[in-house]
């Protein structure tokens, strides 16, 4: 199970990685050693109790070496909502594609380049952060990613820069990604008092089976506000594991939204450490799974300092034989007095076979805090369904409308209008085949 990766690592070290700086080679070597020691997680591991990754562990994926596919600009249109002047970085089958990308339209004070270029030409853009914001000692997939990380987006927002337009990073896979794995590594550094929005999209053209193993490291400096959207619409046969690790300095805000509808199996970890006074974190999300899909979110909000707040709303809609998992941890350190935390997870089951395992976890070691959490699992409101039908609306249309309505309030929390309307459209389309907003 781990053996093919160890062999691949030997190949990598003998080839390209030989020219890399020492610190990076050390990071890679430590990564593969940790991965070899940890192996893939098993259900005995508490954090993986409800998610079996045996389908990933037992398959053999070959490292993707880039854009052998010819993805046309027009093929990306369905995923490129928003204005045409938004800067876009596109990665095809795990490799940066300059011809599809438009970094030139970035606002002054924002830099965005691909990781492989940064490794080769500007290591100073990555060295202070890479592997440090997202440790991998205890995390198999992150360790594996550290060993093989090949490409991704490196984004720096200079202090005091406020950009009204988002930067969209699109990872697209096509038929050439079949049986391949991309170890993507992104870095976002939001300088002090800056304000920006970054969108990560994981999408696919066609229905090939491949493995995305991504890590995004985020530093939000003092007084900065970073809005970070993740949209996962991988192919229904893909595997997707993504860890986002954010570290927040004082008075910073981190706003995250995770939208997940794709992949056969997906696991998204979103961790944020409120490591300064006066911080706020908002972690919202919507997951929708059907058929045999498995969708897992694990969030970890770490209150390390006093006077911070966190807000979290995740909603899930599960139909067919889908299996959803939500595990939301809020950890409050003894010194983190006056912490104000609120977490909810609401799930809607649309079939008898659909299943959800939800586990909110509060671990509070300070005494002067206000923290609440709650989780619900429900079915469609029969009376509302009958009410709509009694007005002539078909059962099917009423079901879809009520399902959409369940998700509507969490989608409304998305502040960037273009993102909100795109995800509303995608949600509505999934449940009704029409896209006019109710």
């Amino acid at each position, binding site marked *: 199970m781990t053996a093919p990766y160890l062999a691949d690592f030997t190949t990598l070290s003998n080839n390209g990685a030989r020219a890399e700086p020492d610190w990076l080679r050390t990071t890679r070597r430590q990564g593969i050693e940790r991965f070899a020691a940890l192996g893939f997680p098993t259900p005995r591991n508490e954090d993986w109790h409800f998610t079996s990754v045996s389908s990933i562990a037992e398959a053999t994926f070959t490292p993707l070496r880039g854009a052998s596919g010819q993805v046309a600009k027009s093929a990306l249109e369905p995923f490129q909502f928003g204005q045409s002047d938004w800067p876009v970085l596109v990665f095809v089958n795990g490799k940066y594609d300059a011809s599809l990308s438009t970094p030139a339209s970035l606002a002054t004070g924002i830099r965005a380049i691909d990781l492989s270029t940064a490794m080769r030409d500007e290591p100073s853009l990555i060295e202070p952060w890479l592997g440090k914001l997202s440790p991998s000692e205890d995390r198999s997939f992150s360790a594996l990613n550290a060993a093989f990380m090949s490409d991704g987006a490196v984004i720096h927002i200079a202090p005091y820069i406020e950009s009204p337009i988002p930067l969209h990073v699109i990872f697209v896979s096509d038929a050439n990604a079949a049986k391949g794995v991309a170890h993507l590594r992104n870095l976002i550094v939001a300088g002090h008092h800056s304000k920006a929005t970054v969108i990560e999209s994981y999408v696919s053209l066609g229905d090939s089976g491949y493995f995305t193993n991504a890590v995004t490291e985020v530093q939000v400096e003092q007084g900065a506000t970073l809005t970070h959207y993740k949209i996962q619409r991988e192919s229904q046969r893909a595997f997707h594991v993504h860890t986002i690790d954010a570290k927040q300095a004082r008075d910073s805000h981190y706003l995250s939204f995770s939208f997940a509808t794709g992949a056969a199996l997906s696991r998204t970890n979103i961790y944020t450490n409120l490591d300064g006074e006066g911080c706020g974190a908002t972690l919202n999300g919507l997951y929708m799974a059907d058929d045999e899909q498995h969708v897992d979110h694990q969030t970890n909000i770490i209150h390390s300092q006093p006077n911070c707040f966190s807000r979290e709303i995740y909603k899930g809609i599960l139909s067919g034989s889908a299996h959803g998992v939500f595990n939301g941890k809020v950890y409050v350190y003894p010194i983190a007095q006056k912490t104000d935390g609120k977490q909810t997870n609401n799930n809607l089951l649309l079939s008898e076979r659909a299943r959800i395992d939800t586990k909110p976890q509060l671990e509070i070691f300070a005494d002067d805090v206000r923290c609440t959490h709650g989780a619900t699992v429900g079915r469609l*409101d*029969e*009376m*509302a369904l*009958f*009410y*709509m*039908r*009694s*007005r*002539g*609306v*078909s*059962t099917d*249309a*009423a079901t879809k*409308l*009520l399902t*959409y*309505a*369940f*998700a*509507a*309030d969490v989608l409304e929390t998305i502040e960037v209008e273009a993102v909100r309307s795109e995800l509303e459209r995608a949600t509505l389309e999934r449940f009704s085949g029409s896209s*006019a*907003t*109710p």
Partner: protein
Amino acid sequence: MLEIKDLYAKAGDRDILRGITLDVAAGEVHAIMGPNGSGKSTLAQVLAGNPAYEVTGGSVTYQGIDLLALQPEERAQQGVFLAFQYPIEIPGVSNAYFLRSAFNSIRAARGQEEVDPLEFLDYMEKKLELVDMDVEMLSRSVNMGFSGGEKKRNEILQMAVLEPRLALLDETDSGLDIDALRIVANGVNALKRPDNATIVVTHYQRLLNYIVPDFVHVLAHGKIVKSGDKSLALELEAKGYDWLVEPQGALAS
């Protein structure tokens, strides 16, 4: 237009309707009165097709067809409308979208073209006037945060939009002040035509000053125990129901 014959219905293992027979012809207004818990709402819900109730006997023929064989949405498409005693709140669905979906579903079922949001808004203007509602309420979620009176007016608004053949009004008057009552009654009267019929379920004769019934029926323990003309409502107001309603236990003895 509507013939109910010896109708029995239950919810769970509880028998509620126990042999209801009622004929309603086009152009007529029937009032159904009776004490709390006698089965008035159950009758209305059964006619609208609420799957929470099981019909265990009897038949209902509506315009010559077997009403009980139709799905709730098909009944609505055929012109049946129920104004709920307790209108349902639907968070996340705007009133405008809900009304337009209903309107278009019914039009589609009749082979008519759907209307777009702008045309619909035009059409809504007159309807809103009829129930004295502000256009602003169209953008709110269905019945969310509505006062009791607003919910009832919203029911009449839906009725005005869908223009039913057979309207069932379940205690649309309860909880309304006299102005709201007049608005609701005017709404109902404005929609009256020789080819449609109305069944008004009410507790109080007050509403019947505004919506004048051709027939009044008293429902007790799931049965119609007395029928008469509008003077029966006045008599009930004066004497209450006790003289008509046998205590439950007495039936068995």
